[in-house]
């Protein structure tokens, strides 16, 4: 029983199958459809309508092909891989989009003066365009990585028992937005410090706009500044991964904080990164009674910044330890 519709149907099924089984499945389906038609029509020649009924009974070609290819591996990323994939995307996408938006916004604002009436339209277009492109790229890369992981059955957290979270009342849960904001702040800081230090300026009556930092020295110190940001991001990423305050998190955070203090020392004390013009002006400002105080600030601004950073990190470390001690008593 040869019929064009049957041929088309069988072709539509087998084209989705591995080449080596195509011929066999084709023959088998021909034989099956022949039997089904015979059961339906007996000795009478089947009409087009009979063929349609029989083929409809077999289901759509895609459905049949998917049953022949096996039930598993129907999707690019499935099961535990999908759960991890979704989680990674939720963290990566906002960070990538925010970082790209920020850097495009800043570079456009600072590099091109607003001499065209459509400046803000162009700015808007560029920013949205770049953010979308970066978002799609990050999406594609993450998707690709997880598709590969799934194909090779890469173990995702095989030791899941060790990773079971403690019951909620035993440790303070860290809300995901806290570390994400922390990561964004670190990115923002490193983009501004290294890319656009001229943004950080103060207005002084006789001197006009003066940058706070010595841009040349700042740029020479790119390595400690980047390490500084990486440590900050690593700390926040650890919070995101742990999801709660753990002893491991406290140890890592304190270690990172010590390194950050050392970095701050290198940047502010070893290399005087502040703009000497500003320090000079600050100490010479004629502001009446306050001048002595301001002079002190001007001459020791580096030490003040270093002390502030150290104090803030010390407070953070003590808070983390206190929380752990408190939660272990519960």
């Amino acid at each position, binding site marked *: 029983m040869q019929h064009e519709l049957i041929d088309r149907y069988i072709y539509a099924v087998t084209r989705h199958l591995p080449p080596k089984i195509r011929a066999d499945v084709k023959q088998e389906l021909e*034989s*099956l459809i022949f039997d089904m038609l015979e059961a339906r029509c007996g000795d009478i020649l089947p009409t087009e309508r009979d063929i349609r009924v029989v083929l409809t009974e077999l289901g759509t070609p895609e459905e049949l092909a998917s*049953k022949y290819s096996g039930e598993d591996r129907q999707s690019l990323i499935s099961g535990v891989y999908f759960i*991890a994939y979704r989680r990674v995307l939720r963290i990566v996408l906002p960070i990538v989009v925010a970082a790209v938006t920020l850097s495009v916004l800043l570079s456009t604002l600072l590099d091109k003066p607003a001499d065209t009436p459509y400046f803000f339209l162009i700015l808007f277009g560029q920013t949205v365009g770049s953010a979308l492109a970066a978002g799609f790229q990050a999406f594609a890369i993450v998707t690709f990585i997880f598709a590969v992981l799934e194909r090779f059955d890469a173990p995702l957290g095989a030791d899941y028992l060790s990773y079971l979270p403690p019951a909620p009342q035993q440790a303070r849960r860290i809300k995901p937005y806290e570390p994400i904001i922390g990561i964004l702040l670190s990115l923002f800081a490193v983009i501004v410090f290294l890319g656009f230090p001229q943004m950080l300026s103060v207005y002084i009556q006789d001197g006009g706009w003066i940058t706070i930092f010595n841009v040349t020295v700042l740029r020479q110190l790119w390595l400690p500044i980047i390490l500084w940001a990486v440590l900050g991001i690593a700390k926040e990423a650890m919070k995101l991964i742990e999801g709660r305050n753990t002893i491991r998190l406290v140890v890592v955070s304190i270690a990172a904080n010590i390194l950050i203090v050392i970095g701050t020392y290198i940047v502010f004390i070893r290399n005087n990164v502040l703009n000497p013009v500003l320090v000079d002006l600050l100490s010479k400002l004629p502001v009446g009674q306050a001048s002595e105080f301001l002079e002190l600030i001007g001459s020791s601004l580096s030490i003040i910044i270093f002390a502030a950073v150290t104090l803030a990190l010390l407070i953070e470390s003590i808070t983390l330890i206190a929380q752990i001690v408190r939660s272990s008593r519960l």
Partner: protein
Amino acid sequence: MPKESSDSKTANHSAAKPKSTTKQELLSGFLLELRRGTVILCVLAKLKQPAYGYKLINDLSGTGIAIDANTLYPLLRRLEAQGLLTSTWNTDGAKPRKYYSTTDLGNELLNDLVRSWNQTVEDLNDILQEA
């Protein structure tokens, strides 16, 4: 990859909105689940005598077990790939037909399956009689 914190949240979320299902739909869903595992048992048992796919469908439906061709044919092929069935093309008739039969491995597996099936039936009956 470390533990997944949003797992429980999403699971609760999907459980929180139940689908409106009629009793009939629920029943046919449960029956489908019940039957799913038993089809392999039927196929391995029936194919101790070689048969082609369509004949198997008719034989089974004659004993009250309905199975669709689009489920059985791929299943036969899968069981063959797993070494539980073997097949030969018979070209004697008007149309060539692929005859499947259970292999030794398939028979061994079938014996184990039957034993465990009987045990399950026994256990289930105990539970159902207690209830």
